[in-house]
Every structure is written in C-alpha cells, then in structure tokens.
C-alpha cells in the first residue's frame, strides 16, 4: 500500500490517503510479467501473430495518446494522423540518408514533438469543435506539402531504401520488440505524467476551468504539453508503422481512419482511464481480425458501438468495470480512508479525471 499521507483529525482519528484501494505492487509485478511474456513472443508464436501484435502496438500507442488529449485535456483532435504521417516520413527521410530505420524511430518521435509546438500555436486559438476540424485541416496541409517533394516519392510514396540486411524472421522479431518498447514507453509516460503535477492540473481544469485559472494554474501550458506529448507518441506510432510496412504512402499514413481507429479504441475501452485504451485496443483487434474479410464493416460496427458507448456509458467498458469492482491497474487518483473504515473506504477523495 503506497500510503501517500497521514492526516490526524479530531481526537486522534486517522485519515489515510492512498493511491489505490488495492496493493499496487501486485499490479506492478503483473505488468512486469506481462511485458516479459510479450517480449518472449517472437520465440514462441508464429510470425503472423507478431505482425498482428505490431499492429495492436501501433493502435495502442496512438489510442493512449488520443486518450491523453480527449480524455484528460478535453482536446478532441481529428488530426492526429498528421503526426502519424510525419513520423513515418521522418523515418523515410532519415532512411534515405542511410540512417538505420530503428535509430530513426526515436529521432522521428522527437521531431514530431518539435513540430507539434508551432502547430499547437496555430490551432490553440480555436475551441472544441473548431479545434477538431482545424487539426484535420493541418494534417491535410502537411500531407499536401509533403506530396510536393519528388525525393520523398511525391503523391505515391516510396519503400524504405535501406532495410537491415537480415532474414525476414529476424526483421519481424526486431520490429516486434521495437513496437513493444514504444508501447511500454508510451503507456509508462502517460501514467507518470498523469500521476504527477500535470494530472492534478488537468483534473482541476476538467472540474472547473475558470477556478483553475484563477488559482494560477497555467491551463494553456498544460494543454500544450499534452498536445506535444501526443505528437511525440503518434509520431512514434507512425515511425513504427513505416518500419513494420517498409513502405510509406501519403494516402495511407495520413489517412483520417488512423484517428478514427484510435478514437474508437479509446471511446469503447474507456475515455479518461489509462486502462481504457488497452481494453479498447483488444476489442478493436478482435473485431478487426474477425471481420477482416468484410472490408469496411469493422469500422462501421466500431463506429456504431463507439457512438452508443459515448452516449450511454461515458467512461467506456473500463468505466463499467471500475464502477463495480473499483479496480485500477494504473492508479492516478487518490482514495480517502476514513478513520475506522479499515479496508472499506466510503468515498473517494479525488476522482481521477
């Protein structure tokens, strides 16, 4: 039990505030075991499975970023495909200049973060719905600009020219591990960010923006930080996409369906919960693999399910689980234990966003 603080109230009664109702050490250990098992996958499963897993890593990374934007900062971006495409093209550009595509990935992610700063400045002037379409216009503009460069394959795109000189099985295993690493880093960063000061700021803004502003919370800065982090994450996912496909095509990497997929995974899994995107990605992958032979049907079904969940179960599938079982794999809020309640706290002190 990570006891956060002890407050002595009237006549020696003790209030305790903890991160979670249950012992997080066990979930930490569980997460570690899951990651280790996942890391061993290339040795135990067919390469077809790892290819699907890489796809899941891409969606999960994007989804956790979109969740940070929409679920915690209230920024509905429909232009995250701009960063996906930018990340993929950074890898292509660096690879053309004979940098290994694996080395290019972190550089691409950082590059997307740097690009996110001026882009934020452009779109931050608009609110909610207009912000959403403005990000979409930005993504389209970036695509149109990149398509002007014949050295990057113009409108048709091109294959990565310098791929590692190893067998395809080894290459797939490398790609898988890189994908796993990207996902773990993405989820870990989101968790740590929300646990810290930023999480508190975003909670305050969500509850009452005016009150937060007047208490000196730098709302704009917090939102910008979220936008940049989401840019880095989606850029990394885009770079991973380029590495796993070995080809970069503008219409594919800049497709708005990336944003649709990440948004649906988040909404179904649970908007505003860290566990939500994980659950949502699983639902997404199961549906996509099951309906793979029916063209666009998985997107239609996912879209309908997402609409229903957005209206009737605001916090998604994980929200339903959390409501009934009070399970948090990644606790970012606090529990208030009233004196004498022992293991059964009556109410939550600070609800996580």
């Amino acid at each position, binding site marked *: 039990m990570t006891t956060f603080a002890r407050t002595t109230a009237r006549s020696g009664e003790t209030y305790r505030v903890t991160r979670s109702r249950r012992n997080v050490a066990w979930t930490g250990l569980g997460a570690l075991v899951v990651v280790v098992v996942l890391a061993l996958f290339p040795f135990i499963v067919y390469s077809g499975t790892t290819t699907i897993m890489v796809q899941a890593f891409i969606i999960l990374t994007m989804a956790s970023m979109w969740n940070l934007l929409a679920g915690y900062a209230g920024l509905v971006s429909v232009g995250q495909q701009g960063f996906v495409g930018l990340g993929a093209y950074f890898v292509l550009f660096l690879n053309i200049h004979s940098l290994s595509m694996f080395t290019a990935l972190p550089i691409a992610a950082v590059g997307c973060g740097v690009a996110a700063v001026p882009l934020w400045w452009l779109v931050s*002037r608009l609110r909610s*719905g207009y912000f959403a379409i403005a990000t*979409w*216009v930005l993504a*389209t503009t970036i695509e*149109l600009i990149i398509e002007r460069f014949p050295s990057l394959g113009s409108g048709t795109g091109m294959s990565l020219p310098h791929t590692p000189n190893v067998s395809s099985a080894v290459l797939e295993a490398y790609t898988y591990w890189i994908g796993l690493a990207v996902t773990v880093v993405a989820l870990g960063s989101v968790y740590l960010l929300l646990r810290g000061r930023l999480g508190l700021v975003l909670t305050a803004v969500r509850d009452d923006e005016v009150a937060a502003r007047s208490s000196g919370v730098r709302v704009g800065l917090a939102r910008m930080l979220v936008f940049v982090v989401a840019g880095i994450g989606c850029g990394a996912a885009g770079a991973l996409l380029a590495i796993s496909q070995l080809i970069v095509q503008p219409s594919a990497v800049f497709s708005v369906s990336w944003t*649709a997929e990440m948004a649906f995974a988040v909404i179904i899994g649970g908007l505003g919960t860290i566990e939500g995107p994980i659950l949502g990605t699983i639902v997404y992958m199961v549906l996509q693999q099951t309906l793979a032979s029916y063209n666009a*049907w998985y997107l239609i079904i996912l*879209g309908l399910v997402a609409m229903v969940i957005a209206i009737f179960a605001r916090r998604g599938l994980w929200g339903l689980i959390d409501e009934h079982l009070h399970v948090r794999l990644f606790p970012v809020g606090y529990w208030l234990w009233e004196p004498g309640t022992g293991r059964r706290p009556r109410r939550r002190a600070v609800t996580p966003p």
Partner: protein
Amino acid sequence: MVWVNDVIQGILIGGLYALFACGLSLMFGVMKVVNLAHGDLAVIGAYIAVGVIAITHIPVLWSFVIVVPLMAVLGYVLQRTVIQASLDRSILTTLLVTFGLSVVIENALLEFVSANSHSLGANNAIITDSFSIGSQITIAYLLLLIFVVAVVVLLGLQFFLYRSNYGRMIRAVADDKEAAQLSGIDYRHVFGIAAAIAFGTVALAGIAYGMYSQFAPTTGTDTILLFAFAAVVIGGLGSLWGTLLGGVVLGVAQAIGAQISGSDEFLAGYLVFLAVLVLRPQGLIARRGAS
C-alpha cells in the same frame, strides 16, 4: 486576363463553399454543435438525389424539391435523438458522436454504393454549358446558378432569423435555452427545426456539388467538411455574410493556386486559411457583440 478569369471563377466557386458552410455555421450558432458528419451528410444528399432522379425521372435541377425535405426530416430526427442525447451529456460527447457518425456514413457508403464516383446531370445543357465574355473569360451557367442560390439561401436565412417570429425563437434559444424554456419555448423542438433547416442547406450543398463535380463516399470529409470549415474560419465565426466572404476568399485562393501549379490548388486554399488563423483569428468579418 488569365488572372481576372481566375478571380471570377474563384468568386463563383466561393458561392458553393459558402453553401457548404451554411449548415455547419447554423448548427454551431444555435446548438453549439460542430457537426463533424456535416460533409458526409451532404454526400448522402447527393446520393439521395441520384436515387430520386433514377426512380422518378425528375429533372436534375428540380431534384432538390424532394431531397431537401427528406434531408430536413432526417435532420430533425437526428437532432431529436442522437445529437440531443449527446448534447445532454457534454459538448465533447457531440464531437465524439458526430465523428463516429461521419466514419460510419463514409464506410457504409463505401459498402453499399462502392467507391466509384457519381455525378448529377452530366448531360443536362444548363449544367454543362457556359457563356463567354471576351476571349479569356468563360462562365459556366451552373456556377452562376450556384452562386445565386447561395446568396438567396444566405439572404433567406438572414431574413428568417432576424425578421420572423420563429427566427426570433431560434435566436432566443441560441442565446439562453433555459430562459427560453421558461418563456414557454420547447428548446428541443426548436433545436430540431434549426437542424432541419441546416440539413436542408446541406442537401442543397450536396446536390450543387454533385452537379459541379464528381463525388464519391470520401468527398464528404476531404472536400466538403474541410472547405466549409475553412470558409467559416476565414470569414469569421457566426457571421453569415462572413461565410460568403470566406467562401469567396477560399475559392479565389484555390483558383490562383491552381493557376500556379495544378497540384497547388488545395494547398493554396489551406495556406490562406492558416494565414487568417495566424493574423486574424477572429476572421475577416468579426460579428459585433458576439459572445
């Protein structure tokens, strides 16, 4: 002379863009809903027109007589059910839901009517003909007609909102729906009517686009929604005449971009949009006293 022609063509196409933007602007103005499915609904309007013409053999130009009421009913129903339900949760939910709707419509269209492009009235003389002024300037009757329709729709909306009793009711609900409710107005019904009007203009925009150019399921998002939005932002949020000006500026920018290089048409339009966003975020015509 070639540039004069570009500017004239740009102004005329601006009418079409203003027509795109009309419904988006109205729904935001009254319900504070940014309908991300706006473009896809316009495309649905165009497909309904294709179907209506195939069944009834009505002249293309008169197809709106059937399509506009159909879309208006769809608008009322959608507003009273899905959009109102999400509006009751939060503004964020309306974005999630209309984005979901957009993706669902686009992919359902891909499934049911295929990705092939369609067009409306390719063999109708009024739609394909044009007249010339001098040797350089050619004006298509269709673009002129669309521009006139756009101006008529904007004037009509202006008149309706500011001169009629129902318009006053819509503005009252837009300003403060609780206060309007206290005065005996059922704001949900008024929202439904506003959505019906918005969807009517969306149907007109869809038919106009279908006559002007070929359309496919993806046209809704990559053309109509983004152009409508760019027109709204360039012109100034919440201003009907600003919307027309925004459409015209976007159209002229695209025409000049196309003159520079064929592939720069859309880029030029978006760069002007971004420039306005940087230099004059309130739009070219800012509504006075806008809240």
